[in-house]
């Protein structure tokens, strides 16, 4: 078996993991599984693409940084895209989820997120058509790492970016007051409210972090694979599986879960064939639900 699957798996795993952080936070703090999370991913990617287009319209062609396939416009656009996706999530919460949450039926919120997901995705299809697009059509030369493993400069940069983001989110969750408030709310909502945690603020931060990370995951897919309206929806099952495997509410768990599923998918592609890769997350999900439904780092709900 070729060791290339490790690189491929780590890359897919970081995309899944970044998305799963948002899923696990929404699930543990707002207590519903958000089926629109994949579409945040796609919206963030298309927003980034649009900003890149606007920048190159204003400044002409910008040469890429070093041997990467992209230049500073993409970095600026990514930051704008992250902000946009965070705001999109906030907006959707304001007009839809928050109102339904107040009615007190968690599962209705899930259903609404399913409807919102369909609407968001079709809107993308309408604006950008369903034809795949790319950030760059340039072909990168992969550098050999030994043992038959090759990696492109883009892949190295994105892996580093993912690592930095994961560590920062972990630090936010464990070292800042807001992060600790988020953990408190996810572990015991009633008690958290009693000690005076600002619930509205925690909810806002949750959506912004989840949306921004979804955007990064989407842009990673856009740079390494392609951009399609369905790109996020197709990631939904792996993200849910990763969040549940890692244990609902745990950021390191979501990332580890994502990496495990990414590596499993990549090795399945080598062993069985690429057409079956989507089944991997389902199998892992079923095993977790039967064997250890609270996941690797989960805790029993009180």
């Amino acid at each position: 078996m070729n060791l290339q699957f490790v690189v491929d798996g780590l890359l897919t795993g970081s995309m899944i993991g970044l998305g799963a952080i948002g899923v696990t936070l929404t699930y543990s703090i707002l207590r519903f599984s958000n089926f629109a999370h994949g579409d945040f991913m796609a919206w963030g990617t298309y927003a980034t693409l649009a900003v890149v287009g606007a920048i190159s319209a204003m400044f002409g062609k910008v040469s890429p940084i070093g041997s990467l396939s992209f230049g500073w416009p993409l970095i600026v656009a990514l930051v704008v895209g992250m902000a946009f996706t965070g705001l999109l999530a906030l907006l959707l919460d304001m007009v839809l989820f928050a109102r339904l949450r107040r009615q007190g039926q968690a599962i209705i919120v899930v259903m609404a997120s399913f409807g919102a997901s369909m609407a968001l995705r079709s809107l993308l299809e309408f604006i950008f058509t369903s034809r795949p697009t790319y950030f760059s059509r340039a072909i990168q030369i992969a550098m050999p790492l030994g043992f038959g493993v090759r990696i492109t400069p883009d892949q190295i940069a994105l892996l580093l970016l993912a690592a930095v983001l994961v560590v920062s989110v972990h630090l936010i969750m464990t070292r800042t007051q807001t992060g600790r408030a988020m953990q408190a709310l996810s572990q015991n909502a009633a008690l958290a409210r009693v000690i005076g945690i600002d619930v509205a603020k925690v909810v806002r931060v949750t959506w912004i972090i989840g949306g921004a990370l979804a955007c990064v995951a989407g842009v990673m897919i856009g740079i390494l694979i392609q951009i399609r309206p369905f790109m996020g929806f197709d990631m939904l099952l792996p993200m849910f599986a990763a969040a549940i495997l890692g244990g609902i509410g745990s950021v390191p768990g979501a990332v580890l879960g994502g990496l495990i599923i990414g590596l499993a998918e990549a090795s399945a592609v080598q062993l069985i064939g690429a057409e079956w890769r989507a089944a991997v997350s389902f199998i892992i999900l079923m095993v977790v639900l039967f064997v250890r439904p609270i996941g690797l780092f989960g805790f029993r709900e009180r």
Partner: protein
Amino acid sequence: MIDLVGYGAFFLTTALIFSLITLGLNLQWGLTGLFNVGLAGFVAIGAYTSALLTTPDDPARLGGLDLPILIGWLGAMVVGGLAAALTGIATLRLRSDYLAITTFGVAVVVQLVALNAQKLTGGPFGIGFIPRPFGGLAETPLLFNLSNLAIVSAVTLAAYLALEHLSRSPWGRVLKALREDERAAISLGKSARFYRVQAFAVGGAIMALAGALQAHFIGFIAPDNYLPMLTFQVWVMLIVGGSGSNTGAVAGSVLVWAIWAGSGALTSVLFSPEQQARAAAPQIVAIGVMLCVILLVRPSGLFGDRPRRVRTTRPSGTTAPESSGS
């Protein structure tokens, strides 16, 4: 005139097949409160099972047992019910969201098998030559359409009456009790999980039967018929009609299908073929928004038996934080 009757029969047949799926979903969601976002998978299981049982032998793939259509329908119900029961057993002891995620996964995997297990399902090209009831009448389309309509109406009516009876039976009352107040129902000695698995399995069997009916009505199936869009359409039908009400399920299906088919016909008249895929997108956006608006404004739909009892005391730790307002 004759054409119009023929089209009317075709339209109603399709709408009634949707009604049958919606009735299955109403048993799962409306009566029992089980959230199934992968119902397209169960419909597909039914369609493929029945197709494999009844099609003539084909050297290119397995199956093709050439059995009578009725056997195909029964087989579809059994396999669909079993698949739903397994899903239920795996997830119903856990939080309700896990069922949603798992059913979603079931639909993804069924779609994957339909696309890739060429030997079994014919792959992307699907299965053709599925025997049609009254196939001998295909020469006279009107008679053929009307006889198909008669069969589908009969099956839907039977399912409707059976479900109406079930929901008033002691069994249905337990399900409602579990939906409304699980703790009270359990304290009366009812096993929540056991009843829920049963309801989920029966609902899955009805969906599979609907899938089989449709396969035999059209005579051809392909993986594209069972995309998440189908799940979405059926959910909208149930919510519009009013979850919890079987009448609502049927009425909502016919109404939403009329809107869907009508706006589809409109886009095909107004736009050139290459623009149509794009023009269809706002239609889906509109329906998605409609679903959200109904959930916000009139959660009980047209015929719903809610409002549900608003719980004043919720178990701590499982309540959703109320974000705004504070």
